[in-house]
């Protein structure tokens, strides 16, 4: 058994004692029960259906969706412009460049 294993097993043995389990459970209950601990969340203080909470929720949803809409619009615009440019090039250019005719793999023995 290595030193680390001994260390871990020692502390696990200490924590798993009934008095420590009771202490940890009491501490967690006190943290949850104390309303001061949840004041870090700006919309958790108010209850469901509260206008302030609704306002924050709608604002957050809007601001969350906007970057996707903006970036999506730009990407869509670039994609459509690319498609248009490709179609325009296909109409104007000759399909096969002459340089291709200068080398034929089959006839050259390769």
């Amino acid at each position: 058994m290595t030193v680390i294993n001994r260390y871990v097993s020692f502390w696990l043995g200490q924590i798993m004692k009934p008095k420590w389990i009771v202490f940890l459970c009491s501490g967690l209950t006190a943290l949850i029960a104390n309303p001061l601990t949840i004041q870090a969340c700006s919309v958790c203080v108010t209850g469901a259906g509260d206008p302030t909470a609704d306002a924050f929720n709608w604002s957050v949803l809007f601001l969350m969706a906007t970057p996707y809409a903006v970036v999506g619009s730009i990407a869509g615009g670039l994609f459509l412009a690319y498609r248009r440019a490709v179609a325009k090039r296909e109409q104007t250019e000759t399909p096969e460049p002459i340089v291709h005719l200068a080398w034929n793999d089959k006839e050259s023995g390769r």
Partner: protein
Amino acid sequence: MAQSSTARRLDEALPQSVAKQPAFGGGEPPAPPVRPNPTIGSNAWVGTLMFLGAEAMFFAGLIGAYIVFRVGSAIWPPPFQPRLPVGVTGVNTLILIASAVTMRFSLKAVRVNDRKMLIRCLTYTAVLGGIFLLIQGFEWLRLIHFGLTVSSSVYGSLFYTLIGFHGLHVFGALIWLLVVLVRAKQGRFSREGHVGLQTCCMYWTFVVALWPVLYGLVYLY
């Protein structure tokens, strides 16, 4: 022979008879022709697109702040605050949308090298934009006279911030448009080169498309 060739180690050199020579010439075959990607637009076009994205995010922040106060208030507008002129601003909205249409026509005109039509459409757009700003300014003066100021309430500060920034953008776009109009009169734009007009048209379309959203949110909701 076939068996010995299959049993050959991979790192062995190929026998001379196996190595093929080209029937004519020598060296490597010519590289396939390079076919570059088609150009989708000028750098100014892409730059303007990015700029408009940033502008959209700026207005999204302002709209987000407005939503917080609007949805969070039980009574809106707050008591003892004047009501906004919905009808006149509705007509003003139509005027601004008409300016976007004439702006699109100017872009079509330059693509067929119709210089007269281009100048006429740009002039119409500038006039319609100017009328929009004048009506907005007149309505603002009335609202200030009725007691709605930036410091009167959250309602007033939100209204002047949101609508004011849009008005400022229209004013900036109008100055840009006047510069483009002068350049169009000088014959600087042609079918092949009209990037300045195209970017101005993009910006104008953006400020026009933004207005119905703000009108619906601030005046109607």
